[in-house]
């Protein structure tokens, strides 16, 4: 148990009043506090965007990386030291646009990471342009003036499922209790876990706001859903017309990437010393 005081953020929060990120931060503190992993074993990896500022508001190891590249960096951190509990906090612009390839491939490799998408349907920090998860027709300063966002949104749950993620869920910043539970499950999951978090952006997105989500979400678990079928999960992911499902879509035990790599038995490349005699042998084998 890590106390709230121990997790107290090193910096003053810069998010707008009413921002959905507050609920995510509070849930994160809760989930981290109760996970049973020592505080210095957590590493937060974030991208660039409003949500990606979260490492400055909670006291953990962290690296605040580049727009779109957080998952790739996190993958390296994890593989260099399997003891670490690596949490990725990223935006929707971040991860579903710039970084989509990394997301899909890390999911496919079943890298043991927990990825939390602060999904607000806009690029918050750059002032409200439509993001890959903005609804078709969403009007912003960079969408074609007449048409709005000229395409269907990225359905990240469906994408992650298709790519092969082994834990996929959706939470809502307004349902902290539910979100804490999902986060904890994701952290405990061995493999690639993704939680799509519905996060109202109070400032820019007037459509996907608190009211909308309060009225248009329902719980998968409360309505009967088989979390062991990938195809059923994908079907549910696509069934997000009037009502958006939240909860766990899918869960599966599968070999993680780390199991296939040539890691030392303790999983700590960081402290491993290559046997220099073995290197010498490799050299000597080349001698005629």
């Amino acid at each position, binding site marked *: 148990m890590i106390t709230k005081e121990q997790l107290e953020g090193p910096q003053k929060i810069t998010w707008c009043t009413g921002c959905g990120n507050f609920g995510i931060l509070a849930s994160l503190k809760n989930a981290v506090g109760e996970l049973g992993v020592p505080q*210095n074993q957590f590493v937060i990896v974030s991208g660039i965007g409003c949500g990606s500022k979260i490492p400055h508001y909670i006291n953990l190891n962290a690296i605040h990386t580049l727009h779109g590249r957080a998952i790739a960096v996190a993958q390296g951190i994890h593989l260099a030291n399997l003891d670490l509990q690596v949490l990725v906090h990223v935006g929707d612009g971040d991860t579903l646009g710039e970084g989509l390839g990394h997301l899909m491939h890390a999911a496919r490799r079943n890298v043991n990471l927990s990825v939390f998408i602060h999904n607000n349907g806009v690029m918050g920090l750059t002032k409200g342009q439509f993001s890959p998860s903005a609804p078709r027709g969403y009007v912003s300063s960079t969408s074609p003036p007449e048409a709005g966002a000229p395409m269907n949104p990225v359905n990240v749950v469906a994408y992650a499922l298709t790519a092969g993620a082994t834990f996929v869920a959706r939470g809502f910043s307004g349902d902290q209790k539910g979100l804490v539970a999902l986060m904890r499950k994701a952290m405990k999951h061995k493999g690639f876990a993704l939680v799509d978090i519905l996060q109202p952006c109070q400032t820019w997105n007037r459509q996907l706001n608190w009211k909308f989500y309060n009225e248009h979400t329902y719980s998968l678990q409360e309505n009967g859903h088989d979390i062991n079928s990938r195809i059923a999960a994908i079907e549910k992911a696509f069934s997000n017309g009037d009502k958006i499902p939240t909860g766990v879509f899918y869960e599966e035990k599968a070999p993680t990437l780390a199991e296939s790599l040539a890691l030392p038995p303790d999983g700590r490349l960081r402290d491993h010393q290559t046997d220099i005699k073995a290197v010498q042998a490799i050299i000597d084998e080349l001698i005629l």
Partner: protein
Amino acid sequence: MDITFNIGGEAGQGIDTIGDLLTQVFVQSGFYTFTIKDFMSRIRGGYNFSQIRVSDSPIHAPIDDIDLIVALSHDAIVGKRNQLVDGGVIIFDDTIKTEELDACHYPAPLQKTATEVGGNIRMMNAAALGAVLAVTRFPFNLAETALSEIFLRKGRKVVDANVEVAKALYNLTKENWIGTCAHDMSTVKMGPCKDRLILTGNRAIALGAMAANLKWISSYPMSPSTACFQDIVSNAQRLKIGSLQTEDEIASLATAIGASFAGARSMVTTSGGGFSLMVEGLGLAAMTETPIVIYNAQRPGPSTGLPTRTEQGDLLFMLTASQGEFPRIMLAPKDPIEAFDVATRAFNLADKFQVPVMILGDQYFSDSVKNVPRIDAGKVEIDRGKRASTMASEPYERFKLTEDGVSPIAFPGDQGKFVVASGNVHLENGHITEDPDIRNSMVEKFMRKIPQILKTLNPPQVFGGRGAETTLLTWGSTWGAAYEAVKVLADKGVSINLLHFCDLFPLKTHILTEVFSEAKGVVAVEQNATSQFAKLVLMETGLTVDKRVNKYDGRPMTPRFIMDRLKEGGIS
């Protein structure tokens, strides 16, 4: 003795293997060899060659004159014929339809003998070897010992079959071939060369990295760097090295940065196009002061350019790549021996100064094979730089402002510490800030590293003695051709020397300015069109070279090429 064999044919015909066999036989027999590989960006067909130069004294570059061509295709008969010396011989498979060739050339039954004697057309390699040895009257017993050792790993049967095929063609040639070769090696015993480790630049980098305790590599295949990555992967299990072929180069560097941030010595390998994709990540490594080693095996650009050819065209690009300003280190080994050393130093420098270290190779450097003395891996020293004390009482600050600009490093998971880093401008504790004064301090912290780095880097080397009238200026792999040109010219009485850089940046200027002031004329010899290193020297010192020798057709520099250009400039 200085003899050059050119083995040409289609991709997939095994010319590489013949070349390797020849190289190995001569090395086993105590000769110095230097092998270059010339191949097209395709998998089968076309015209490729492997060219082996053999000598009884050390050699460092290919030369233009070819003494003997082994041709497995028609293109190979004509492809290099203009470089064949007077009295040179072409051995070609007798199934190739060709115009009448002088009787001095030799249509050899390579395929036939392989099939009939060895029972396998793939033994054409041994057959070709036999023909070459016979033509040059190389004592077969010397070759036999060599062949036995080479194939021993594959078992007695393979040895015997290959020796038999080689011998068959050896004898057949002696009987049937009516020409004579200018080179008569019949009196040859054992050469003086004791350097029995034959290495490519790519492999030397791989070995150096492995000896330096590389623990993480993530790369994406790209010629001509791929072999280096493959060498490490193939030893990953044995040495416990984490390796991953990522989805692209962006991920490869980002993943390596992550691994390094978590404490593992990390590296990526690529070529210019892949490095282009790493440019944003390079800035992240720099800003977060995460040590990283990047190996760029250059090839001719721009863009996809000539994927399997050579050029030194990325120097200035790598010098200034990524937005903003930060210290970096650039090293360009001249050959495989130096490459091993450079690779080990690269990791130490990256850790010591917490900056990106870039190793510049090129296809010529990467793929050419040189024989070198046995490397003693035990001598490699590992310096991981300043680690944060394990029992500090104060909260840990990853970016503590220090006198030398380097902050003690810790890794996530270290007891009692939280390690925080950011690509944004940050406080000493790693959390973000927009404060102008801290920004200034952090910029100045970066700048303070440069003089420290300079102290640690190696000075350039002068070959041929100080105080010559003409100085050739080279960097990286162009050294060999220039070195040999200088030797030839000096022997002819020309006052000439060579100023060569391995450690390119930050640029050590002390010896440089001295040599420039001693010389009447400085000639920059570079494998590119714009003399990039001369530009770097000018930018850093204000010193201008007097003449430029440039080769940019994607084929390696030779001593003759340099001498011809010098002659045009009145130096000969």
